[in-house]
């Protein structure tokens, strides 16, 4: 057996330090995606024609090009235009922007699911369009989308190792460094896989539980 347990235990603390960075990037990226995705969703819903068309194409563009190339663009091109970012900030922006295309889609389905009558009723009560949207439609549209947003969070978590390519020392990068240092990749990389597996299994069970719970609440 090629597996070395004492090596495994010795690298675990360093890997967990990488995991902290991974989780940081995941949650910050998710927060960014939640906000930017809402901007896209609002523009698609209410903005005049040309702006709406531009955003529809932009979202389609972001969603159908590789996150890795987007990260390279943010990390290498923006400094040329005077915006120098640390690897972690570039990574968070990249993750957030990429997944804003997906959260926008989730929001849209939530907004479309609110019955037309809600808009009509709000208009009849003298609410303006924007006020109706913020105070009547959104509070009804968001709760049912929480499980879908949870799945996006898990997807961001699973895409966060891409940040290793722009030198963020998250979990995978940490494993790579350990592997190179000790000429043993088997243990660190397997541990990374196991950590990802455990965390995403737990979180997808949790999302599944929320789905059942929200169906019962309706």
């Amino acid at each position, binding site marked *: 057996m090629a597996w070395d347990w004492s090596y495994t235990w010795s690298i675990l603390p360093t890997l967990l330090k990488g995991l902290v960075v991974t989780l940081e990037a995941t949650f910050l990226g998710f927060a960014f995606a939640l906000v930017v995705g809402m901007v896209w969703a609002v523009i698609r819903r209410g903005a005049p024609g040309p702006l709406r068309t531009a955003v529809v194409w932009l979202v389609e563009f972001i969603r159908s090009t*590789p996150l890795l190339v987007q990260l390279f663009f943010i990390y290498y091109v923006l400094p040329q235009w005077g915006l120098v970012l640390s690897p972690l900030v570039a990574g968070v922006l990249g993750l957030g922007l990429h997944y804003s295309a997906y959260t926008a889609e989730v929001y849209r389905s939530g907004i479309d699911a609110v019955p037309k009558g809600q808009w009509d009723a709000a208009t009849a009560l003298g609410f303006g369009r924007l006020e109706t949207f913020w105070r009547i439609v959104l509070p009804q549209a968001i709760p049912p989308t929480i499980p879908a947003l949870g799945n996006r969070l898990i997807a961001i978590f699973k895409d966060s*190792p891409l940040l290793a390519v722009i030198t963020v020392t998250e979990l995978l990068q940490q494993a790579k460094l350990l592997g190179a240092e000790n000429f043993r990749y088997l243990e660190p*990389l397997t541990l990374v896989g196991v950590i990802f597996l455990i965390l995403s299994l737990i979180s997808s069970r949790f999302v599944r539980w929320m789905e059942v719970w929200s169906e019962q609440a309706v």
Partner: protein
Amino acid sequence: MTGLLHSVTQFVATSWGVLEVLVAEGLPVTLAIMAGGSVVAVVAALAAGLGRVSRIRPWRWTSTIYVEAFRGTSALVQLFWFYFALPRLGVTLSAMTVGIVVLGLNTGSYGAEVVRGAIQAVPKGQWEAATALGFTRGQAMRRIVLPQAALRMIPPAGNLLIELLKNTALALTIGLTEITFRAQALRSETLDTAEIFTVALLLYFMLAQVVSFGMRRAERRLAVGRAGYPGGGGA
């Protein structure tokens, strides 16, 4: 004004040169991974998707383990594991093999859930009718249920193929000279960073459009003669 015009012309000219390099030297590898990966993905998705609804336990269990393992970890981690860690266990594969098999299996694990969902969405009555007509379970699956489920699989399968296309960029990390690899190499040679990554993004975008166009055609073709689908017959 002329200054701006000059820099725009320059940007376009440089971009054109970049496009030629990426298409000539990167695109073939991207397309090879994409083609091989799609085949692996379709086979794995069907095998595991059918396995998940099968009554044969070992098949069901293997399928579940495969789907959970590949969906639960990250595509990049999988590439690294198969390329850097697996040799330690005595299995050494070429970078191209790892790229095609791992990215294909990754997409296939999501595809398996699409296959399973589509099969389960076929009304129970179809199974009962097939049983009443004397079909075995296997025959009913092959000749009654799968053909109906196939149409439902197409739109999500199209999205997964685009995810596979996006994932081919990860292959640069194991040294495959696909589009993103060429773009990175070109960046260190010429420093035309803005042009290079703009062109790379546009190239991927066009490829994705080709994939979704192809899938829409496939859907229309499969829908011929079906009620309730565009291109199908009336209800």
